[in-house]
């Protein structure tokens, strides 16, 4: 039995060692009601460290929207850019801007927000060495190419277009005329940063400090973040609740279940599989409003087969062969709205949202068939719509679009879906111009401006012009619009440019994506802003 005894001890020791590592725990506090009530909200793990210029997805964006305020702030309802920290932004030539920062603003650690807080933050964001994802936002500022060259090391530390001229004033020089530039400054990437950000970067990342209505109380990466109302917040949009607890859920279905069980106050991503039950479960506590996201079908203009004169009729015909209304109702349960232009309803009529597409975005089988024939028919007889198969259940709507086209044209072989395994692979093929037929494209606005829906996507050589669409007339109108200091006239010129896009049918607008959210009966006054982020500071706890 000697050997056996040894083995016994060894086994016992290993088991004990394993059990010992399994200790730990703690508990989380709940919140009371009223003005100090805490709102609990679903969250996903942010994909990047929480730096303002390195966050380009909605989960990190939620936090930034609570702890930062920039020169401008977008109205949660209308999307209009309004002065927040900016006292005034002046320009005479749409190229040189003078910014005056309001007095009396501080970061939550007491440090004053000055012109330098902005200029230093922007230079940090643009510098290639800091690997910030949103660096390209600063591409319009003079000297950007020196701090963020396409090849090699940066040759300058700061952008020559930014100059601090006083404690609360600084000037911006752009490389081109861009009249609506001040309205882009509400984007999180343009937020001011306190000195602590540079002095002890790691500490700042584990507990970010900003100048918004909330402060970070605690942050355990990958599980939850507790934010508390900052009582010293100088702005007018003070928090109406005591704080917000963001909880990371493994699955949006679980978050939804937790909401229906009354353990969670707010879910801002209602899972598609629950859309059928949502009105039964939540009644009027379900929000479904348009967001600044548009889905389109792009064409490979770099492919000779798809770039023949007269083919605009083919593209227009295809657009008219798609029954947008039916697809948005049956496949998307009305969480998409049929598109009537290339922008988004969140811009509002003043911002440039208008039914530019007209009859070309309406389903008309007979007219579609005629136009496709006049446009020379579908190249090769069959077209394949490419999409990535791994996320977003694109297969269903692509198949529906193809069915709609096939039905309208009376040809079962006119259109088929072409799934590509992963999003990464799909994007690679798209950016390397390897598409041989139409492909799906989605655009989420960076800031609520008509410019942002047109220039990056359809201007010759623009950063996200994946179909390589080019039109001298379109480019000319965009340039004119950017140079126009009168915002109303600028918007009119952008709409004219959109008209060019319609006549060419440079991309087929499909539908606008909605943001959805559900909330518990413990909270009220819940809404989504144009970026589909809940307006946390307005939520009231009963």
């Amino acid at each position, binding site marked *: 039995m000697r*050997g*056996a005894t040894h*083995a*016994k001890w060894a*086994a016992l020791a*290993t*088991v004990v060692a*394993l*059990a010992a*590592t*399994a*200790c*730990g*725990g*703690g*508990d*989380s506090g709940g919140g009371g009601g009223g003005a100090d009530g805490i709102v609990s909200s679903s969250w996903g*793990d*942010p*994909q*990047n*460290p929480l730096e303002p210029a390195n966050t*380009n997805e909605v989960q990190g964006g939620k936090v930034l929207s609570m702890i930062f305020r920039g020169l401008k702030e977008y109205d949660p309802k209308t999307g209009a850019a309004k002065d927040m920290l900016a006292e005034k932004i002046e320009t005479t030539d749409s190229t040189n801007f003078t910014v005056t920062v309001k007095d009396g603003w501080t970061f939550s650690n007491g440090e004053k927000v000055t012109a330098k807080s902005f200029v230093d933050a922007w230079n940090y964001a643009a510098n*290639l*060495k800091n*690997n910030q*994802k949103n660096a*390209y936002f600063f591409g319009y500022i003079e000297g950007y190419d020196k701090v963020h*060259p*396409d*090849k*090699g090391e940066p040759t300058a530390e700061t952008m020559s277009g930014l100059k601090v001229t006083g404690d609360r004033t600084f000037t911006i020089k752009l490389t081109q005329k861009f009249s609506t530039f001040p309205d882009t400054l509400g984007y999180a990437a343009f937020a001011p940063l306190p000195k602590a950000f540079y002095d002890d970067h790691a500490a700042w*990342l584990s507990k970010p400090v900003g100048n918004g209505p909330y402060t970070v109380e605690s942050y*355990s*990466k*990958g*599980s*939850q973040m507790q934010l508390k109302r900052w009582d010293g917040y100088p702005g007018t949009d003070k928090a109406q609740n005591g704080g917000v607890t963001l*909880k*990371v*859920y*493994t*699955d949006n279905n*679980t*978050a939804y*279940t*937790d909401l229906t*069980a009354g*353990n*969670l106050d707010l879910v801002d991503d209602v899972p598609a599989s629950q859309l059928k039950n949502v009105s039964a479960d939540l009644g009027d506590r379900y929000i479904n409003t348009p967001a600044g996201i548009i889905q389109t079908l792009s064409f490979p203009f770099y492919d000779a087969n798809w770039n023949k004169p007269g083919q605009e009729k083919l593209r227009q015909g295809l657009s008219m062969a798609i029954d947008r209304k039916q697809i948005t109702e049956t496949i998307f349960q009305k969480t998409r709205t049929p598109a009537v232009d290339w922008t988004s309803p969140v811009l509002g009529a003043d911002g440039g949202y208008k039914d530019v597409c007209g009859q070309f975005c309406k389903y008309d089988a007979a007219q579609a068939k005629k136009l496709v024939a006049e446009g020379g028919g579908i190249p090769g007889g069959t077209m394949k719509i490419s999409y990535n198969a791994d996320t977003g259940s694109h297969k269903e709507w692509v198949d529906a679009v193809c069915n709609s086209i096939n039905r309208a044209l009376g040809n079962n072989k006119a259109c088929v879906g072409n799934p590509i395994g992963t999003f*990464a692979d799909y*994007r690679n093929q798209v950016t390397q111009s390897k598409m041989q037929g139409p492909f799906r*494209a*989605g*655009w*989420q*606005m*960076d800031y609520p401006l008509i410019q942002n829906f047109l220039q990056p996507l359809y201007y010759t050589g623009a*950063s*996200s012009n994946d179909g390589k669409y080019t039109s001298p007339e379109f480019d000319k109108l965009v340039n004119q619009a950017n140079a126009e200091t009168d915002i109303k006239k600028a918007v009119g010129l952008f709409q004219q440019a959109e008209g060019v896009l319609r006549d060419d049918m440079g991309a087929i607008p499909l539908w606008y994506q909605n943001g959805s959210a559900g909330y518990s009966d413990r909270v009220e006054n819940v809404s989504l802003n144009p970026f589909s982020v809940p307006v946390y500071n307005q939520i009231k706890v009963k």
Partner: protein
Amino acid sequence: MRGPGLRPGHRARLKQEFGLDKPVWQQYLTYMGNVFTGDFGTAFNGQPVTELMANAFPVTIRLTVVAILFEIVIGISLGVVTGLKRGRPVDTTVLLLTLVVLSVPTFVTGLLIQLLLGVKWGWIKPAVSPEATFDELIVPGLVLASVSLAYVTRLTRTSIAENKRADYVRTAVAKGLPRRRVISRHLLRNSLIPVVTFIGADVGALMGGAIATERIFNIHGVGYQLYQGIVRQSTQTVVGFVTVLVLVFLLANLIVDLLYAVLDPRIRYA
């Protein structure tokens, strides 16, 4: 905003920073060198993989402990009862039940129990908090254990039924030992060998294969991290976790081998 909008300069810089401009063999050697010094690299959100592990493994170990306890306590008890009363109504009932459990996938059981206990009756919270304490893990642990539990029951039952007629059991009975002692000391102990083998292998499977259960009950454990790693194509996370899981498998099997000697006096290690 569309997809990863990396500019060429940024791309080149990141390539250099992560060593992606070096030949593959060199990248591999660097990675392996780091792994042996305990550095599994950095996940895409900037957290070191070791930090993710430090958060995820304690949670999953707790979940596994709960699941294994269920397997041992319920599985083996049911196995002994049915094994001793083979062919009786108890036996048939349990057999039928295990058949049902075996044929229903875990995610169905999980969602159903979550809906009934969590939402309809309100006995438990449907989602586990980030701390994931033992009491919160009881229901998820039962769900996770359900299939294995059925296997353990069936294995024990067969093994007991077979050994009941063995010589040493008859000897023990003939010696006049009390029935309790015959069953626990002689019959059960010898019958447990296949069961222990199964449970040992199951430890590894439960730790790595809890993806469905962890997602349903919001448990931030290994399965969740693996899933995130796969979805976000974070190779470091996936390779790191799988490496550790392999070690866990090896360790679990080592324990099983050592336990053989405890259970069966005929097996000895020098």
